């Protein structure tokens, strides 16, 4: 090999080795990993009639709600989202927290308040618990109009009902209104130990729970189990049918419950309304 050629090769090798060493200072695995995603933005698609190409009233898309707070409920108004006049405000209001009351003594309808239980989180699990304390509070505040409300893994409806399909793709839903009406919907049920609202004594196995009605079927889209510790979340990606109190129907699917930074109970909900 000519001396010049060898020199070029050696120079190339040295430069390559230097580049590798420089790269080696901050690691060689960087290319293996993904960049954290940005927080999902709301997606609203106005459906079109494929034959006439005219706009329909039905909207579909994605909603993202950081419902990880123990202390707040978040409300979704599907009717307002479907209405072009109120859509923008309705989407903005989804992120508005409605704090769980910790004071007051409003017993107008039910035994509203915080029920504190000792849960056997380190032993047989959360199915074993003992009541410790009750503190009466005001009823949960809510906006004038809403379709469903979320709090971590809990979901409520506004005097509605929910049916779970076996579908995992919302676009495959093809039921007609009469079929929808005939479905066996489950309404909300009163609970005193499901809505975990106070984690201030969690390391002592004491959890404060809100007395409130939740929908057991829709809440099953994200189940929390203990053991193990830390809790295990089980995601159910089935499509759910929500029957609203005005007789309209919506399709809902939880597509993700983890934020880009790894926080659980940050819900990405796919929806279609009205059906």
């Amino acid at each position, binding site marked *: 090999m000519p001396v010049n050629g060898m020199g070029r090769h050696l120079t190339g090798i040295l430069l390559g080795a230097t580049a590798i060493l420089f790269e080696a200072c*901050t690691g060689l695995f960087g290319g293996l990993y993904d960049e954290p995603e940005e927080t999902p933005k709301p997606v609203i698609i106005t459906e079109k009639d494929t034959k006439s190409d005219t706009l329909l009233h039905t909207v579909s898309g994605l909603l993202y709600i950081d419902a990880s707070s123990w202390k707040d409920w978040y409300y979704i108004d599907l009717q307002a989202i479907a209405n072009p006049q109120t859509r923008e405000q309705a989407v903005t209001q989804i992120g508005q927290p409605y704090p769980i009351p910790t004071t007051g003594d409003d017993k107008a309808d039910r035994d509203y308040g915080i029920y504190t239980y000792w849960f056997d989180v380190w032993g047989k699990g959360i199915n074993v618990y003992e009541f410790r304390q009750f503190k009466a509070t005001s009823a949960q505040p809510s906006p004038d109009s809403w379709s469903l409300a979320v709090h971590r893994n809990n979901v409520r409806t506004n005097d509605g009902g929910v049916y779970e399909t076996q579908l995992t793709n919302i676009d495959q839903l093809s039921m007609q209104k009469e079929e929808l009406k005939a479905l066996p919907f489950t309404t909300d049920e009163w609970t005193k130990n499901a809505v975990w609202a106070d*984690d201030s004594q969690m390391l002592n196995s004491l959890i404060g729970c809100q007395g409130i009605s939740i929908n057991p079927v829709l809440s099953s889209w994200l189940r929390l189990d203990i053991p193990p510790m830390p809790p295990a979340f089980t995601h159910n990606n089935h499509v759910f049918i929500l029957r609203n109190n005005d007789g309209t129907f919506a399709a809902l699917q939880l597509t993700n419950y983890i934020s880009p930074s790894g926080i659980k109970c940050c819900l990405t909900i796919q929806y279609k309304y009205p059906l």
Partner: protein
Amino acid sequence: MKHRICLLLALTLAQTVWGQHEEKLDTAFNLHELVVTGTRTPKLLKDTPVQTRLISSDDIHKADATNVQDLLQTELPGVEFSYAMDQQTHLNFAGFSGQSILFLVDGERLAGETMDDVDFQRLTMNNVERIEIIRGASSALYGSNAGGGVINIITKEASRPWTLNVNSRLSRHNSQRYGVSFSTHGQHASNNLDFSYNGIDNYNVNNGPNPQTRVFSTVYGDKTFHITDKVTLCPWDGFRLTGQAGYFIRTLSRTTDIPERYRDFNGRLSALWKMTEKDHVELSYNFDEYDKSDYYKLTRHDICNYSNVENSVRGVWNHSFVNTGILTIGVEYLHDYLFNTNLDGHTREQDCFDIFTQMDWIISPRWEMVSALRYDYFSDVYHSQITPKLTVRYKTNDHLTLRMSYGMGFRAPTLKEKYYNFDMAGIWIVEGNAQLRPETSHNLNASAEWTKGRYNITATVYHNSVANKLSTGLPHSKTGNSEQLFLEYLNLDNFTVYGAEATFHVRWDKHFGTRMSYAYTKESIAKDESGLTVNSQYLPARQHTLTTRIDWQHQLNKRYELNVTLHGRFHSSVDNREYADYYDISKGIRCIHYPAYTLWKLSTAHHIGKAITLTLAIDNILNYRPKYYYLNAPITDGASLQAGIAIDLDRL
């Protein structure tokens, strides 16, 4: 012949020093084995001036250990692996926690830590030849983190033209272990390729009612994959070039949809050159990258949240003075890079330089003295440290060896300890402290080793005085933010750790032997500057621990040999002072009692011909189940059967 010289280069150095020094020793105690960790030069175990505990390849086989955690707790008293917060594994070794015990692989540091401990799962036993353990401060040779001792894992070297071993072991909770080792050895080159896979499922354990303190209810299994290749070239007499590369990945699922991934990639290049009969030079470059990431199954994103990258270059020169001793001089540079999403600024890096020298004086066949001195410099906050060590060995006769040493240890504050800043689950904000001073320790060690015929007895006493211990302090609030608690890193007050260890080893004949080791450890709890006991996140050492092994070997005929081994370990109870209420430390401290336990394992190895070994073992034969799974409870839910097979295909 060349290749033999090359492979035994280290041995020739020792022979140069010792000349015709030969003794007839019982090989059963491994006293003729070479060890390198105590002085950075090869020494016969019987002669090394620094008391060294050797876990041989035979010990590793008998323990049937999967990783270094299994092996150390089986073989050594005074060793306890427990859970830290978040159920990360934590080591307590004779009163020193994982950050003060330096783990090395072939003399090289490991990158990465979790709750101050290296990832023990990455240290699998598939390719390990032996492990050398030095108790007491060794910072004069190894720098930071060697205040409590050094554990050096030596990997296998090929010695036969070719070998191919495949092995597997199955047990409860879908525990699976598979390994393949392939090696070739020629006149000028040899190669070792090792692959291992280990996996075990998550499983739940049950606690009794009303535990006194924190317990765990789920044991998180994991899946590890490890591959490493080592190439050794001996192009000419007296020169050896070694290249090594390894990849490791561990997956653990605390949350089904976000499994955690731990990866490591390491590469090493080293050259050992015997310039003359008296002068040896070793140059090495080591790269180690340890990463942690979360894999988001729903979005298929693998997000890295931690990366520690260490690049180090080292040169060591040894000069032998005929029948007088060895002079060692070394220099080292290490670049330390840390990315951690809990770190203020997310990334930090620093340069570390050091120079060390050691003089090994062979005063007479009975007396030997080793003195060492090291200077370390850390570019972050411009800190430097000098550490000395002095060791004396005296042989009273052919049977009794006495060793004494003084050593200083230190641990430089890590980038994590200086720059952490994150909210820990809403409980408190963990804050680093850039003004931290290094933790230092002074260690006195004395040992006696007596060997005669069938018996080998070793007794050691030690005392450590530790200053400026690095730790988190008491949770406290700050002015103007009285509700928010902060947990800050700081230097604690002085404290002491002292103890003793005795090992009784006997081999009645080549078929039957036993070894029993007992350790006493007294660890005082460190206090902060106000004199308040700091409730460490780690549990203190148990005062009394004992390990024992009884092994019996019987050859029924030419094609069948049976080995039966009984391993046992006992850990005494320990009391610890802890907060009555983590949310309100004003409620004071209460004493928590952690009970004693004992675990026994009976294993049988059936050697069929030269190539096949079947292993059947019952771990935890007394079917011990902790009533409460406190963080230092043994991780067992009762007896378990283990069945394994190993085949040496080259011997079929």
